[in-house]
């Protein structure tokens, strides 16, 4: 599981991005700016998902994986953007709920609950990462023993 310099740079960028997005979300909460914290949420999710596949080598499989993650993240951002834009809208209703509640409750909840797990199974399957990890889990402890 050795990791290339490019991968380390990618991980560095993701860690810094997560830190910045979390700070922006915190400012959004303290200053009561819905825009900042509504968009911080899908951004945090996106950064963490990209971090989780950051050490998969650059291959065709990686591009397929990134495609799946990009699609998921675009939908995720769209859900929160719609919820934000309809936050004060009392004219549009769905299943008896205001639009902002409905988009998260009726679409966001099943989307995150089901698609997240299925996407993990799909990515684990095409990346072969679980097989690789099984091979790497055997052996003695490798922390230096004096």
């Amino acid at each position, binding site marked *: 599981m050795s990791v290339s310099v490019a991968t380390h740079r990618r991980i560095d960028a993701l860690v810094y991005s997560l830190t910045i997005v979390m700070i922006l979300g915190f400012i959004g909460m303290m200053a009561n700016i819905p825009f900042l914290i509504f968009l911080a949420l899908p951004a945090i999710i996106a950064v*963490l998902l990209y971090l989780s596949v950051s050490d998969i080598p650059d291959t065709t499989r990686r591009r397929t994986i990134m495609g799946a993650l990009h699609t998921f993240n675009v939908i995720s951002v769209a859900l929160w953007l719609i919820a934000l834009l309809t936050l004060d809208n009392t004219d549009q209703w769905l299943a008896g709920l205001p639009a902002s509640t409905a988009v998260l409750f009726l679409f966001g909840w099943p989307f995150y609950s089901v698609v997240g797990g299925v996407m*993990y199974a799909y990515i684990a399957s095409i990346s072969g990462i679980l097989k690789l*990890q099984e091979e790497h889990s055997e052996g*003695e402890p490798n*922390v230096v023993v004096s």
Partner: protein
Amino acid sequence: MMDAQIMIITIAVIYLGLMLGIGYWANKRMKSSKEFLVAGQSLGFFVMAIASFSSIQSGWGMMGMAGSTSTWGIGAILAGAFLAPFGFALTWFLLGGKLRVIAHRHQAYSVPDLVRVRYQKKSAQLWMAIAMIIGSIGYMTAQVVAAGFITMLLLGLPFELSLVIGAGIVAAYTVAGGMLAAIWTDLIQGLIMIAMSIVVFFVAMNLGGGWNATIDTLWQADSDFIALDGVQPAVWVVANTIMIGVGMIGQPQLVHKFLMLRSPRELKWGATVAAIGYGITTLFSLGVGLAARNQIEIGGVEEYSDPDNTAPLFLVEFTTPLLAAFALTALLAAIMSSASSFITIGASAATRDLMGGLGITLKRELTWNRIASAVVTFAAVAVALFLDQIIYLLGAIGWAAFAGAIMGPIVLGLYWRKGTSTGALAAIIGSLGLNVFITVAPRIFDWWQPPAQFFPGFSVIVSGVVLYVVVSLLTQSAADQEKYENLYRTPAPVSASAAAIAEHIPSAGADRTSRSTTQKEDQ
């Protein structure tokens, strides 16, 4: 009414007897601390997935959430449960395979163990152990309060005595059977929760004339009950959502399950099963919370004096005795499944990690684990008797304590080579200190007046991540990067004799590495 109470008590006693029976069975199989702490690293995917969601879905999630939904409306579900199922997927993505690899290669049985192998610094391991003990007691407090309410209702005893009895039963089977008992009881408890949540949701919605009629009644009474920006500000709701969904990755009762897996291949469908299981059990608090509020609004019942009483009182007043009995049993299951995990986690942190960090080697580790389990339970009962927060907020304190301490040092630390032991130490101490401050400040300082939309748990998680990253960048060293490389370096071939020793003396490898790294650090 007497017949109804006898029926409820009978079913509850049968259930508790089954749990104690599993504790007895596990006790007979228990031969080492490896079996006590990580169930012998033998779990398959289904048991692991169901046990994962049931240890997360707690008295806080079902009973506390039903009360908060009744008080805050649908915003409470969006805040506390909406993103939780996705939290499982996120945890599987970020930690699943990596933790399984590290657990087997380094004999890591606990979260502080992970800190030891990642940072090789005694003080970081010691502080993570302290964070685990405090977080376990905090989270356990929410569970024993919930258990106390139900036991009080079942037996008609004073709350304080009920609380002690409820906690005592959980402690009994956990002390006897450790994590092996906790896992198998989690499986049964998870399946009970799923079944009862579906039934209770439809019964509760039917009571108000169906989903649309119930929502319409709430809208007529107060539109805030169904709005995202409603009883609680939208910003507060989203901050809470982040704490739950993202903070899930930092929950040791979930992290622990990855250390118990038989093989990484068992991970593939685990996140889906756990997420769907959790999502289904949210129907319980959604149904009971909205139906209870509906009944309050149409005058079917008076406002409950304590929101935490909503679920048990609603079930007894508005469902049949048989359904109430099974539903209350499901609530007990939710409470116990989390409590047993936290007792074991707190005990392991105290006996292995805290003592190890202090340089003390315990003989008869299994016996000490059991003593520590009893002490953690006693401490939670003591705290529960002195705090008067509602269950939901008590649980949030424990959840944030874990997430704040684990997000940076463990989650980011497994990926980021620039993470340092000093950064980990700063994140653990800083987030723990902030959490304690935010919890006690309103009772002590008059000047502490946060805005209405301030949600403490999110702030604790942000502080943990920011401290970890910033302090790590300020304290970079080649030695720290070497420690990161050690986590994944290709291991030397293992000899048959070494494998046999590791098999029969499970903590030997861990103790060896711990001592050697401590010596290095001291030099």
